[in-house]
């Protein structure tokens, strides 16, 4: 009897989270999967079961491969840089230097700004001629570069902005990580005559690995999740040079109204993210020191 009550209480406590998860995560996932197996309904063509046709057309869709490659480049270009920068910034603002609070805030500001606002700012940084970057380089006599209008510079430009936006966020985690490291370790390493670099590489960095794992997963997910800026900056152009998977899904679903194909793309993205998260947990977890 008592057990039942306790069980019931337990379920009751679990219910709000469970209901939200079921309603907004699991149910949509299942319906998305089902939608990907059917064609779209319209008054001209009725809905019919199409099986894996959606996935087949995905594999033969050159734009899909383009946006997938773009996304991989973006991940490769932004994750190591933003993690490296985050560690450096965290090390700087972890020291007792004058104006530390101000510096911390300055590093964190990009994170607090909404992505759309950020994109609007950077749109005018990158604008040829009237943009901040071009005006700065023109002083030194460099030619004007159309950063967002050139297929070879557009993705790197977006990477720079993403790093700028994300590094401050990851810094906060590293800062928290650094502050859990006992100061005795630093004193001990100083007594032993260990160099600053040696202390960082042999002591701090290994102790920060749990943070790094967390940040790594987050950064990877973000590189697929963050597309807000594309709406403002490039709309995926020129000629899909900056188009990313999620933006392509959005276009397919809401501009082209092709829910069936968008569902297939979504399932692909879900599986991809689930697999990478799993891989990261399984392989990297083993090498991480938790205390």
């Amino acid at each position, binding site marked *: 009897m008592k057990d039942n009550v306790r069980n019931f209480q337990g379920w009751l406590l679990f219910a709000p989270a469970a209901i939200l998860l079921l309603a907004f995560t699991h149910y949509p996932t299942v319906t998305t999967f089902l939608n990907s197996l059917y064609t779209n309904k*319209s008054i001209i063509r009725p809905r019919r079961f199409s099986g894996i046709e959606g996935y087949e057309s995905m594999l033969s869709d050159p734009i899909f491969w383009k946006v997938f490659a773009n996304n991989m480049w973006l991940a490769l270009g932004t994750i190591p840089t933003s993690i490296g920068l985050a560690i450096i910034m965290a090390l700087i603002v972890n020291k007792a230097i004058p104006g530390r609070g101000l510096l911390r805030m300055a590093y964190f500001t990009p994170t607090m700004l909404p992505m759309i606002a950020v994109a609007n700012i950077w749109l005018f940084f990158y604008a*040829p001629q*009237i*943009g901040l970057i071009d005006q700065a380089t023109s002083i030194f006599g460099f030619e*004007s570069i*159309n950063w967002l209008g050139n*297929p070879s510079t557009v993705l790197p430009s977006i990477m720079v902005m993403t790093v700028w936006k994300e590094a401050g966020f990851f810094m906060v985690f590293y800062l928290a990580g650094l502050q859990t490291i006992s100061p005795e370790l630093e004193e001990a390493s100083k007594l032993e005559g260990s160099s600053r670099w040696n202390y960082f590489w042999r002591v701090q960095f290994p102790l920060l690995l749990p943070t790094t794992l967390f940040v790594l997963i987050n950064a990877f997910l973000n590189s697929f999740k963050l597309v807000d800026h594309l709406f403002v900056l490039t709309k995926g152009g020129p000629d899909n040079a900056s188009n990313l998977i999620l933006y392509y899904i959005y276009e397919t679903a809401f501009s082209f109204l092709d829910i069936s194909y968008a569902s297939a793309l979504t399932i692909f993205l879900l599986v991809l993210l689930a697999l990478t998260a799993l891989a990261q947990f399984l392989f990297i977890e083993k090498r991480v020191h938790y205390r």
Partner: protein
Amino acid sequence: MISVLFRRSAVEGQMKKKLRLTLGRNKVKKLLRKLSYSLTVALGISMISSAAIAKTELTMYYPVAVGGALTQTVDAIVADFMSKNPDIEVNAIYSGNYDDTRIKALAALASGNPAQLSVLFSIDVHELRELDAIVPFDDLVSSSEEKAWLNSFYPSLMENGVAAGKTWGIPFQRSTIVMYYNKDAFREAGLDPETPPATWGGLIAAAKALTKDDGSQWGLMIPSTGYPYWMFGALAMQNGQTLMTSSDKTNFDHPDVIEALEVWKSFGEEHKIMPKGIIEWGTLRQNFLEGRTAMMWHSTGNLTTVKKKADFDFGVAMLPAGKRRGTPTGGGNFYIFKDTSDAERKASMKLIKFMTAPENSAKWSVATGYMGVSPDAYETDTLKSYVAAFPPAAVARDQLKYATAEFSTYQTSRVKKGLNDAIQATLVGSKTAKEALTDAQAAAERILKPYR
């Protein structure tokens, strides 16, 4: 001793619990009683009020594609409408650009809490029809007066709203592409500021004179993000071709269309009067206002903002002619959704008639630069005196006689994306105009085949 104490406290605890429970029950009863009371009162009040004024509530989404304080203008006209029609309540919701607005209107439709009418992209008509989302105005007009109203608009503005022999969209925020030019820069370059170039040859010659070697001022900018197919529609028309021949057939690989894209590219590559590559729609107005380009092709919907912000003398001209003059129309139409009651449809018609009435259309045109939608709008004192004082306001209208429908087919968005990609691929040099447009035509064929 200890165990006795313990037991007693346990008993006390149980008693307290019981007490609390009964208290709780009483409280709940009281609460329920209160609740049912207030519910009856609330119901009563709402019944009385709905009986007193049977208000028809309308939700309308509308887009703004050119920036500026256009939402205030819409809000003002809507407020004016409500004060004159106290039985109709209108929620006018600004919802981003054309794509965003369509998404919101369709999402509202799917949610079962739909909008009754909306201003959506004029070229969305085929997709909205395919979704069975809208009703034709032919079914809504009955009296001869209303039929006359349906014929009161500029015919070229009606083109995009017509499909399968019926009218589905009523023009509201409509535009053509016009050429803004910096008269001060013209004077500086020794050109006559009162005779803007009227042909492609004249355009290239003037732009060459206006382009400065140090790159501080370009002769011309034509935007190639956002709505590249729209700008291209103008160039193709000027070369004698439209981009589609019917709602299920595109015309991308016609030699003259390919040539038009080559001409666009040549402005940057061969003639060097325009920056090479892609030119951003969103920052172009700023480029013009800062004098980085002496001429720009842009929507007439920008006119009032440019007028307010330009600190130099500027003019507005029709787009120049290749084989002929040409521009697509553009902008948003009113649609009425199918999922509406008769009362809501009547109220929607009232609102649309009000907002497109000559006087309001004139006010809207003055506030934005968009066109008055009917000849009568230009006969109002508001627009007459405005045009007299500021002649550029009439250019878009004068250009209407050369205008064609904006690109629109079944599956418009997807076909359009293929065309946009082709234009951008050509301008950045990853494909030739011929390759890009032939590919786009093949893709469009695949998409449109099932509709024939």
